[in-house]
């Protein structure tokens, strides 16, 4: 299994380099509207730009929530709300949109050399469904829906939710939860959080790599020939379906590892724990001859190698101090 990576300098740089010199921007097509709600000021920003089929939309934000939805048209519709309390700070934070035929970049720019600027920008964006989307944020939640192009989403402090996406490649957060629902990937799907939980439901991909340090990993209705899920202290729960010829490596240091499967697919199991228990609802035939002492809820040795049925799906399960369970659904 590859080393788990939660961040890449490339992706972070894309977020953090917002404070650099401003580039030439497409003139705003809509004048911002400003409202002073007591101490809190808000400013609305709207802009629509065309994006060719197969083009790329890239959004980098410092603080604020992001909602991106795939639409049927060939335009990017950007609606943003800037919020802040200090008038000077407020006007110094700008939204920059750079557009070419095949690419639209949106950046929130903060002034250089200033500290403790309490200004955030919430984005609501509609993009052509086929657009590739890269979205990065330092602080704020990201909600991405109905996207068919290649999708990369990162946040440092915030949760990530991806729904109905056809080509998800990477979804990562440091401290927030990550949810993928009804998603596919034409390549390798990498999903991770350092301290948040990771949940996948109704996900299809050739290869899936899931990682967390302290969060739980839950994968349900996940169809893939190769799944790797790792956590240090979190629990891992995988509820297939297991594919014939598939390989599933599930590892936690101190969390439990649970696999929920039917008895319709044969499995070859290699399970080991240092101080936990291993149980299996399926009767495994030892690779060294004879049945392993498995029965519903029955404890086995701390290391088990065995097969059930034709052994066509390979399960490698390990937990240093947690329990390992194979549960029949």
């Amino acid at each position: 299994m590859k080393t788990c990576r939660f961040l890449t300098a490339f992706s972070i740089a894309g977020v953090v380099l917002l404070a650099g010199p401003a580039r030439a921007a497409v003139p705003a097509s809509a004048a911002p509207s400003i409202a002073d709600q007591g101490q809190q000021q808000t400013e609305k920003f709207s802009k629509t730009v065309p994006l060719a089929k197969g083009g790329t939309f890239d959004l980098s934000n410092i603080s604020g929530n992001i909602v991106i939805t795939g639409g049927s048209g060939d335009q990017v519709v950007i609606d943003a709300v800037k919020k802040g309390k200090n008038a000077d700070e407020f006007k110094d934070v700008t939204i920059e949109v750079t557009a070419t035929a095949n690419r639209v970049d949106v950046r929130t720019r903060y002034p250089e050399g200033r500290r403790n600027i309490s200004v955030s920008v919430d984005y609501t964006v509609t993009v052509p469904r086929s657009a590739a989307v890269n979205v990065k944020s330092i602080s704020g939640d990201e909600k991405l829906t109905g996207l068919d192009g290649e999708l990369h989403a990162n946040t440092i402090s915030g949760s990530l939710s991806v729904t109905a996406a056809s080509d998800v490649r990477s979804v990562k957060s440091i401290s927030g939860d990550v949810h993928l629902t009804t998603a596919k990937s034409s390549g390798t799907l990498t999903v991770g959080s350092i301290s948040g939980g990771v949940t996948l439901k109704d996900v299809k991909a050739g290869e899936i790599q899931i990682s967390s340090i302290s969060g739980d990993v839950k994968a349900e209705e996940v169809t893939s020939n190769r799944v790797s899920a790792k956590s240090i202290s979190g629990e891992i729960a995988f509820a297939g379906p297991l594919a014939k010829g598939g390989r599933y490596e599930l590892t936690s240091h101190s969390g439990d590892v649970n696999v929920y499967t039917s008895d319709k697919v044969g499995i070859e199991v290699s399970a080991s724990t240092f101080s936990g228990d291993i149980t299996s609802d399926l009767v495994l035939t030892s690779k060294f001859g004879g049945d392993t002492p498995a029965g519903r809820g029955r404890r086995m040795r701390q290391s088990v190698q065995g097969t059930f049925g034709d052994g066509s799906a390979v399960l490698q399960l390990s937990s240093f101090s947690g329990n390992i369970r194979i549960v029949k659904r």
Partner: protein
Amino acid sequence: MDTRRPTALACERMAPLVDDLVDDRLDQAAREPLESHLAGCESCRRMADDLREIRRSARTLPTHAPRPEVWARIAHQLAAPTPASPRTFWTGARVALAMAAVMVVSVVTSVVVLRGPRLSPQPTRPAQTGPAQATAAAVHPSGSDTVKDVGEYLRIADANYQQAITGLETIVATEQAVLDPAVAATLQKNMGIIDQAIRESRTAIASQPASQLAQTSLFDALRQKVALLEDTIALINVMRKGDQAGAARIIGGVIKS
């Protein structure tokens, strides 16, 4: 007449092939006489078994290459002019050494895998006593000694990882002020979780040195610690670009507001 001599010569002739046998690089013509020799020579057979064990253990050691941005950070530190004020203990060179120590893990692995221990084969012979045996024992490690060597390789790799981690931790401790406090706290908390896993794995290895799971857990945890520290440094690095400290403070301000 020395009846051991022909066997010893056979061992000398066969020993260089054991590496290739273990690595499955021998053709049938070369393999047959060697396997025949191993069947009758306990010492050479033990050596082959030891080599297989070492390779198996070495496979649990991950090859680790620091990411370019981390190297860039180190290079930046090395290239930076020496400040007038005293530098912190972990200068760029020391960090480079620390990272090089990580690379030693790969080197150790490679050395172990490619070369194996330089053992002189012992022929099968009756037990003997006296100085001759003492000399042989000193020159030719026994099977248990070789297994002990595997443990030593693991300890060296562990120590090198730890050295690298110490260097990276020093950078992070010195410069993490550029990070938002909440993010820094999250990273620190999770590094503590990894540290706990490392401690538990080391304790397990101490009680059961042959436990492959304990070894795998240890090196998985060490690798994750290095990766997380590298990620943290990468984050610090980009925060510092332009006015990244300001950007981080911006986030801090937003979170507090």
